[in-house]
């Protein structure tokens, strides 16, 4: 019973943090900050998947969602900056 409360607390804390970071990703003026925020949202959601006993989904989310997607966004961002500056 006690474990369950701790579990809910951790899960809701992570959920709240990812909400904050998602809002940051939408609101921030700098695109690089937004890209990093989306990456961190993915990382937090992979922790949530792990807490919900889905380690395979967590692995995919951590490597593709927060790793590769962020890198590809930065490649694209770099390419866009060349044309606008």
């Amino acid at each position, binding site marked *: 019973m006690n474990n369950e409360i701790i579990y809910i607390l951790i899960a809701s804390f992570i959920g709240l943090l990812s909400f904050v970071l998602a809002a940051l990703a939408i609101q921030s003026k700098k695109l690089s900050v937004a890209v990093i925020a989306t990456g961190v949202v993915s990382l937090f959601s992979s922790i949530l998947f792990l807490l919900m006993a889905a380690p395979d989904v967590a692995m995919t989310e951590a*490597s*593709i969602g927060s790793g*590769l997607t962020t890198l590809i966004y930065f*490649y694209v961002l770099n*390419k866009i900056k060349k044309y606008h500056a």
Partner: protein
Amino acid sequence: MLRNLLISLLLLSFVYIFYNLYVGFTPKTELDGIAAHYADKGAAEIGAANLVTAVVVTYRGFDTLGEVTILFLTASIIGFFLKLTEADENKVIIHRGTSELLVTSSNLLVPIIILFGIYVFMNGHLTPGGGFQGGAIIASAVALAILANPNMHINHQIILWVESISGVVFVLIGVLGILLAGGFLDNRVLPQGQFGTLLSAGAIPIIYSFIGLKVGAEISNILEKYQKSQKES
């Protein structure tokens, strides 16, 4: 004004829909239908300790083939739209230089991460994870290596061959399933072996290893294309 009104109307309707779903949701206390069949008979029929793998590779193997095909299409479309030419080969990426910490740690970590990816897809039928996860982990090792050395040369030919051969072997094992066992992608083309050991669950370890190689090669291919698109002089 009208736009904001419409947006808030849409959001409110979403709230209504999801609230109704939330209120009307009653969790099932026991499995029924096909889920019960998978849970009760999956281990005996397929011989995989990880039931998710039994569903993904054998019961729903055709869907997995579709997913792999979609990933292949994605890689090809990215290659098509990035418009890389032969002249790009000789150019380099101008960057501010990478830190000593990143270079040293990536030299240490890249082989370990690749080894972990191979472990994940070879043990797909025993432990959580499988072909897609293992392939994604291998590709993230490639991403780390690119971060440490932005001008790294990735051998395109190796990626091409690994990807094509894995895809062909995956489909061939599936066709063997029609000839020797119950149907397309049936895993009983090979003996089931001892439950819970590495060489068990029929063809699942082989199929998943090739899926892992294919996914890893495809995502590395996408990364390689993006890396090449950054070259300028």
